[in-house]
C-alpha cells in the first residue's frame, strides 16, 4: 500500500517508446510525514494520518498545533488519513516522498472536481433540451419528471438541476509513467479530477484492472 498527497500541476503530453504521444498529468506530490497512526485498539480502525505542506506555527490554530506537538511533527496545512491493511509498514515521523512509486504502478487518484455551481439539467446531466427556435418556448428545461396519480411523486434521485462539480471524485486504475524524486513530481497517464493546484490523494489501486496493452 503506497500513498501520498499532492497537488495537480497541469497536463501535457510525452512520447512513449513507440513514438506515440501519451497524455499525462503532472502532479507535485509529497514529501509527506506520517503524523499519527490510527489503530484498531484505540480508534477502531487502521489508518495512517499524513501531513503535507509545512506551514509556520502561527498559521495553525492551537488545538491542531497541540496535535502536531503530541506526535513531534512540524505544523502542516494538510492532514489526511489513508486506511491501510498493515500498520507495521509505517512509523510516526517517517517521510514519504514520490520515490515510493515507480513507473508502471497502477494507482487510484482522488480529487475534488471543478465546481460549476448550480447548473441546469442540460449541463449537469447532458439532457437534450428543446428546439432553440421555430416558435418553441421550451429551450433548456428538463422535460417531464414523473408519471401520474400513481406514483404521484417524483422518484428520489431524479436527475434535475442543482449543484454540479466541487465533489470528491476518484479516478481508478491510472498508471504512473514517470517519477522525479528530485522535483517531487509524479507523471500520471490520463487526467485527474479538479483544477490546477487542486489537492489530490494518490494511493495504490484498490482493485487493479490491468488492461492488456495493445501491441
Amino acid at each position, binding site marked *: 500500500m503506497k500513498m501520498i498527497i499532492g*497537488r495537480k*500541476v*497541469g*497536463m*501535457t*503530453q*510525452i*512520447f512513449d517508446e513507440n*513514438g506515440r*504521444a501519451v497524455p*499525462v498529468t*503532472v502532479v*507535485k506530490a509529497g514529501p509527506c510525514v506520517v503524523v499519527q497512526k490510527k489503530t484498531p485498539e484505540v480508534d477502531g480502525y487502521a489508518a495512517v494520518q499524513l501531513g503535507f505542506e509545512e506551514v509556520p506555527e502561527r498559521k495553525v490554530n492551537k488545538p491542531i498545533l497541540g496535535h502536531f506537538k503530541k506526535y513531534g511533527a512540524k505544523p502542516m496545512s494538510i492532514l489526511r488519513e489513508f486506511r491501510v491493511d498493515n500498520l507495521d509498514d509505517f512509523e510516526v515521523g517517517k517521510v514519504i516522498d514520490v520515490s515510493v512509486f515507480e513507473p508502471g504502478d497502477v494507482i487510484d487518484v482522488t480529487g475534488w472536481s471543478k465546481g460549476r455551481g448550480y447548473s441546469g439539467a442540460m449541463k449537469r446531466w447532458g439532457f437534450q433540451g428543446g428546439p432553440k427556435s421555430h416558435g418553441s418556448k421550451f429551450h433548456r428545461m428538463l422535460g417531464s419528471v414523473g408519471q401520474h396519480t400513481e406514483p404521484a411523486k417524483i422518484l428520489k434521485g431524479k436527475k434535475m438541476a442543482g449543484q454540479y462539480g466541487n465533489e470528491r471524485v476518484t479516478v481508478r486504475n491510472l498508471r504512473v509513467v*514517470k517519477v*522525479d524524486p528530485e*522535483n517531487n*513530481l509524479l*507523471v500520471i497517464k490520463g487526467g485527474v479530477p479538479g483544477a*490546477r*493546484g487542486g489537492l489530490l490523494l494518490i494511493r495504490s489501486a484498490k482493485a487493479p484492472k490491468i488492461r492488456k496493452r495493445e501491441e
Partner: protein
Amino acid sequence: MSMDHLVRVVEKDYLKKEIPEIRPGDTVKLHLKVKEGNRERDQVFQGIVIAMRGSGLSKTITVRRIATGGIGVERIVPLHSPVLEKVEVVRKGKVRRAKLYYLRNVRGKIKIKERR
C-alpha cells in the same frame, strides 16, 4: 517555483535539441521512421508547411504535398516526436499569413516567393 514551470521540467527530457527554424510557407523534408512489420525504414515526405500550432513539446506542423495524380496529401507531425528523425528546410518561403489553408483551393502551380 510556479506550477507551470514544473510542467516544463517534465517536458524538458523529451524536447529535441536541434530543430531548424521553420515558418509557414517553407518547403521542408521530413525524415520519418516507418514501421512495417518488424522492419523499420526511413520515409521522406517533402512539402510546404501550411500551418504550425502548439508550443513546446506539443508543437506540430502541417505539411502539404501534391502526390502523384495531383492528390493533395497533408501530414500533421509533432516536431518533437521521436518518429521524426530529421527535418530539413529545403526552401524558405515568404508568405503574409500564418495559416496557408488557401493553398488547398489553389489550382495549378503553387507559387511562393523565396525569403532570404
